[in-house]
């Protein structure tokens, strides 16, 4: 219909020349069609609003239902509206949703579709592109709606019972037999005063009742502060096992974090992987200081969901950097591909600094027995996780 303007100009000349009044009416008619068509579609498309309703977090294997509401907020009807929603290829195949429909004034249409969480990760949902045009093919418009919606698929969590994480930090929530750590917040009774007892611990009420000095008895407890060190440096894994081993490493880290949080312990995470939400120009490791609670767990899982392999930060550098955030007596859970001498040196330094260390290897180049032997010499526990069922060692 690009010739409509030329026709209008021609009609104007004919009408002016022949002086036929009705031709001017036709001129208005055609011009009205042209003008209104141009304005109508653009305004109507501007008033289209899109809203997605869904849970933006899911676990591996879940089906996420997404409800897409498209609403025409204007008084102008939309003759046709084509919708193209781009989706992550890992969650849906084909990776788009398309449809076409019309919307009356103030009408709303809902589209439902499902995403299959087959792989952990951080996925952008969209963008959604809307196409529309007028009734005569004169003009068409396109509008991209980027809402910043995302979906986080958490890694698999294997339920673990106990990791056997020792700690020396006092005043925790795990009872222990070591009397050296008595937690003054856990009073379990009174006893007779003995020489050397602190006067602050005297229980005055009982003393008044009994007539002899009585002191409070406290239950000893330790706090297990743990930091998971997760190695996702691609170069430290073999080419054949890079993907599977790193995914297994993430699963292991998630499962351990979950277990410790369930035990109401303090857990942190440090990794040299790439966070897609961080600035790609700056190479920085991911460090989450140890905290307690479900919120910390969700925070750790969020990071583990989106973290990817990187190449920029060697694992030993990460260890050196991250252990500065740990308190004395904490436990470092090292999840890495292989343990070489440089790593063992680092671990020995950690041990001497008062930390407890547990080593988990997933892609050893040498037989694991050698690694285990070396670890024993250094005085740390070592485990091999070659596949998921190897995590059963912590289920007992």
């Amino acid at each position, binding site marked *: *219909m*690009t*010739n*409509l*303007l*030329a*026709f*209008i*100009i*021609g*009609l*104007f000349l*004919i009408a002016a*020349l*022949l*002086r*036929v*009044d*009705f*031709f*001017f*009416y*036709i*001129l*208005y*008619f*055609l*011009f*009205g*069609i*042209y*003008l*209104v068509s141009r304005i109508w579609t653009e305004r109507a498309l501007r008033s289209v609003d899109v809203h997605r309703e869904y849970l933006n977090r899911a676990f591996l294997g879940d089906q996420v239902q997404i409800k897409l509401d498209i609403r025409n907020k204007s008084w102008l*009807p939309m*003759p*046709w509206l*084509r919708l193209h929603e781009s989706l992550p290829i890992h969650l849906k195949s084909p990776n788009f949703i*398309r*449809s*076409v*429909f*019309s919307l*009356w004034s103030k009408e709303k*249409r809902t589209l439902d579709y499902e995403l299959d969480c087959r792989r952990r990760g951080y996925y952008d949902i969209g963008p959604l592109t809307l196409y529309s*045009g007028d*009734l*005569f*093919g004169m003009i068409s418009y396109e509008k991209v709606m980027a809402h910043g919606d995302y979906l986080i698929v958490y890694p698999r969590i294997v339920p673990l019972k106990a990791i056997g994480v020792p700690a020396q930090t006092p005043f925790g929530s795990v009872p222990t037999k070591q009397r050296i750590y008595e937690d003054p917040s856990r009073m379990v009774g009174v006893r007779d005063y003995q020489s050397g007892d602190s006067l602050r611990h005297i229980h005055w009420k009982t003393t008044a009742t009994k007539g002899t000095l009585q002191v409070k008895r406290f239950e000893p407890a330790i706090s297990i502060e743990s930091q998971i060190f997760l190695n996702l440096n691609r170069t430290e894994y073999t080419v054949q096992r890079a993907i599977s081993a790193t995914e297994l490493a993430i699963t292991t880290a998630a499962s351990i974090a979950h277990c410790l949080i369930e035990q109401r312990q303090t857990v942190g995470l440090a990794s040299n992987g790439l966070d897609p939400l961080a600035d790609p120009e700056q190479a920085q490791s991911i460090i989450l200081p140890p905290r307690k609670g479900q919120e910390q767990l969700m925070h750790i899982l969020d990071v583990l969901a989106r973290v990817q392999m990187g190449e920029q930060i060697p694992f030993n550098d990460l260890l050196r950097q991250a252990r500065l955030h740990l308190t004395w007596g904490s436990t470092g859970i090292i999840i890495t591909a292989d343990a070489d001498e440089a790593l063992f040196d680092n671990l020995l330094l950690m041990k001497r600094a008062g930390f407890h260390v547990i080593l988990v290897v997933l892609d050893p180049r040498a037989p694991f027995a050698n690694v285990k032997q070396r670890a024993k010499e250094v005085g740390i526990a070592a485990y091999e996780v070659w596949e998921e069922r190897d995590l059963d060692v912590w289920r007992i």
Partner: protein
Amino acid sequence: MEAPNAEKQTKERQFLTVTLEEVLRPLGIAGMITCLAVSFSQFINSLTPLWPGTFVSVLAFLVSLESIHAWRTVKRLRLSGRDKSRFRFAEWIVLLLILRLGLSLREGLAGLAEDVASWTVNAVSFFDALFLIIGVLMVAIWVMALGLAQTMKELEATEAEKAPATTDPRYDLWSTAPSRGRVDRTAKLRGLINTFFGGGIFMLVLTGLSLVNLRQLLSLEHARSSGIIANVLLYFVIGFLLISQAHYIILKANWELQSIPILGKLGKRWLQLVLGFLLLIALVAALLPVDYSVGIMDVLSTVLWWILHIITQIVGLILFIISYVVGLVLSLFRGEQAAPPPAPTMSQPMLPPPAPSTGESEPVAWWQFVRSLLFWFIIIGVAGYSVYHFLGDRWDIFKQLSMTPLLRWIGNLWKSLRRDTRQAIGRLRQSVVQSIARRRARLAQRTGRYLSLHRLSPRDRVRYFYLSIAHRANTQGFGRPASMTPLEYQRMLASQMPDADVDVEALTQAFLEARYSAHTVTEEQMRGIQGVWQRVKRALTTRRRQLSARKSSEHGSPSANDHAD
């Protein structure tokens, strides 16, 4: 729940498709062609009354429908070769017979009997000139209707274009050459639209020529024609309906080929929207003026006159106000005894411009003028907007043309003229602004701020009297220093004007009371001080004159010693 709904929707869609394809579309095409035939007949009738206009129009409608129906029948029955030729032959024989009968029956049965008798004598008379001309016209109509119907059908998605299933033997061929068998819908739609517009121009020209006197047209002295021309309106309405349908078919074909699901009753809504849209535009267009009582030049000149008239009235009013105020101010200086100045009268306002006429020396009513103004405003707006966007859409063509040497030279000349003119205007503006600023600065130095004493309270006026004396004294070299109190300054003033020392004292005391006390200063007191102030002013003026006289006598006349020498 979903299955019955989907089935219902499918049935609705099928019904709509059948209605559109079998009924509405052929009727629309036939209607459009009939409108063209009506205009053609009107034009021919304006040249010769022998042309059977009504019969040709009805025939055009029937032939169009027959053409489309015959084509659909051939397709449905898959006729080919000899069967198809037989079908067509029979079809044309019938059409020509109907034509012949129709022409003969114009004179009634007697005319038919006469014609039959002449054919038996001379078979060639069966094919008279009118028959042949209308026959050729019929062929053209037949071809046009068929072409339009076929084009509309070809816009739909075909099986050959759709991607076959991966298990289909044709899949390999399709995957290696997916564009094979693809229809160029854009070209077809363009052809359809060009046909529509071409037909529109043809119809408008013929209709216009049938309404005006050709001789007068050549000398541009023809009168205006008014009234509704139904076939013209119908042609464009049906045409846009068909174009909209064609656009929908293309969109639908593209969606089908891309496997994009169509949700809801899109087709039905499309039709409803198009009808509603066209109706709305037609109604709004009907409200706009299509005729004018006053020509555009008369309208423009009348509008300009009115603008000038309003401007002169405003200027006159402003001058009147200024002259009245100046007269009042001047009257104050004439004193109380002087007679008040005569009130200036406003100059006789300019007579409004004469009412525009239609050219036959008959003045038109104001509402007719307004309607003409609205008409020209809208029409020029429409034409201007169309030209602007038309050129804008083809700007690259003009850009290419502008690369030719001559146009480039003209363009550069124009650019340099524009640049120089802008610079000259800028310099002129700057110099005007600077000269105004200089003048203002000079004026500010000379006159200072105008103060209206009548607006001041009696206390402020007393203060003003004292401060104005200090200011005047300052011009004579004995102003009041900031460190000096009013009483100390009183002594200085008295020493400079011994004759007015009493008045100076009274003025100083009044100032001190007005400035530093909470006593009420009444109007009477103020008037008394005003008299004192005026006397002190006169004393200052006298002193200044005496001093200047002394100075001029010291400089002007030679000294006694010089003369002695």
